[in-house]
């Protein structure tokens, strides 16, 4: 079997594990479920100056945010844990193992995100008034999500390669909370001071939110965006740019990290973890 097939097989097995092991499933569904519930309670409020439901406006943004957060932190956490317990070393000890390992993680993360996306859309279309699904919108959604995965997963691999201690995983959640606040997810970016708008528009999260809004909201709502436009050309450029950076930087960094893996490196990390535990 080729490394691609083995990687896909790997990802498939791990997706099945994630879906059939209830603690994992609960963890995966908890935050998305919670945020959709909050949005559901917001559906009676209206976007200022319109009759459009605030909950319905925010749902696409939250879908975009989820792609950004899960794309980056999901892979980061997987990689850090796999380094700690020796899964990465096992991949290194197996012929073709590293390539298949990376493909497996990409498959697992993408599948998890896509399952979440489909669930959120089904709930959104059933319970949130005003969302529209058109052929053009779906097409936009497909390339936005695909580029979004390409833009975020390599960043997750990069972060996961750089973080050596599982305790630091929690720390990367913090900048993500800050980023959410300035990416126009729950609070319109147009209401932020210009310099914060600038920072927000550097990162993929804003562009993912905008792209998903462009796919699922009626065209008339673009008036609440910056420039009164969905700016799909910029969405494409920004996400493609991040994808290019990530794909260029992440593989050599991961290779470097993998080169340093050995039995004694894993054992030493384990010993440190035991010391912390006692």
């Amino acid at each position: 079997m080729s490394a691609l097939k083995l990687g896909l097989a790997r990802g498939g097995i791990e997706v099945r594990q994630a879906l059939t092991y209830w603690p994992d499933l609960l963890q995966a569904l908890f935050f998305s479920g919670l945020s959709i519930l909050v949005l559901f309670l917001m559906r009676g409020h209206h976007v200022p100056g319109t009759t459009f439901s605030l909950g319905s406006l925010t749902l696409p943004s939250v879908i975009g945010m989820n792609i950004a957060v899960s794309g980056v932190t999901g892979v980061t956490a997987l990689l850090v844990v796999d380094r700690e317990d020796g899964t990465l070393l096992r991949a290194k000890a197996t012929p073709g193992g590293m390539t298949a390992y990376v493909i497996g993680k990409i498959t697992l993360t993408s599948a998890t995100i896509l399952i979440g996306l489909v669930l959120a859309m089904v709930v959104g279309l059933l319970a949130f008034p005003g969302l529209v699904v058109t052929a053009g919108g779906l097409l936009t959604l497909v390339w936005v999500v695909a580029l979004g995965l390409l833009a975020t997963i390599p960043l997750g691999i990069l972060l996961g390669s750089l973080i050596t201690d599982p305790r630091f995983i929690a720390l990367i959640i913090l900048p993500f909370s800050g980023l959410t606040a300035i990416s126009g997810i729950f609070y319109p970016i147009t209401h932020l001071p210009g310099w914060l708008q600038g920072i927000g528009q550097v990162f993929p999260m804003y562009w993912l939110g905008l792209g998903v809004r462009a796919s699922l909201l009626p065209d008339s709502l673009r008036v609440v965006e910056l420039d009164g436009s969905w700016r799909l050309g910029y969405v494409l450029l920004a996400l493609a740019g991040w994808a290019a950076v990530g794909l260029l930087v992440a593989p050599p960094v991961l290779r470097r990290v993998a080169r340093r893996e050995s039995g004694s490196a894993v054992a030493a990390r384990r010993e440190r973890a035991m010391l912390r535990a006692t």
Partner: protein
Amino acid sequence: MSDLVAEVRDLRMSYGAREVLGGVGFTVRTGEVVAMLGPNGAGKTTTIEILEGFRMRSAGFVSVLGEDPAHAGERWRARIGVVLQSWRDHAKWRVRELLQHLGGYYARYGTPEIARPWPTDELLDLVGLTAHANARIGNLSGGQRRRLDVAIGIVGHPELLFLDEPTAGFDPAARREFHELVHRLTDTEQTTVLLTTHDLAEAERLADRVIILAGGTIIADGSPDELALRMSGHAEVRWTRDGQRYVHPTDQATKFTRELFAQFGESVEDLEVRRAGLEDTYMALVQEYEQ
């Protein structure tokens, strides 16, 4: 083709100013079981990791299966098996699922002489995990987990198998079973094995050859018998006479015993001659080195 599976000459390894290996050299021949012994910090793990291709060396010549492990590719990797001390990976996978999956990586490296991978069910049977084939790996006991690690180590039908302290933490029955497994591998499969251990009885049982490392150099290299013979001065003769117990260390046990009987005849009882073993040699050599 040479019958050398591994060749190491003047291998050196330093971390900054600290030298861990100071010119190690040895060879491993096809089908041999070589045990590497030595106190903690002697450089065993470093040596093995360099041979496994997991660690870069500072200097020296290393050849494993005809290639330099530092630059060898995936085809070479497929001919090697590695069993480490403490794998905890793939805890969510099931036993058969993981073995079947990992076997897939070796399929393209099979040759007419060596079929790869090892069929999953045969392998499960070989390591005694058939009853646990569908168990979650995270739920296995320590001994079962180690047997799985051995199974993964040999799933690609390796020509050279590295075992790092394979029976640490085993109870005596599990240790014996493991030794029988290694014997089966080396007798029927011609697998060459390089293992590290702290258990000298294990080394004596399993190894064709023993290499003792101390302070980053090899202080002894030979068969367990040869090494034990180095300490032939350390046989011990014990006997009782008239209800009294005697112990006498000697370097000529046969001559001493003959004289004992000549002098006291039938009043010598409970005679016991205990020749120095690997453990005595090991202790003496390491002590000698440390002074």
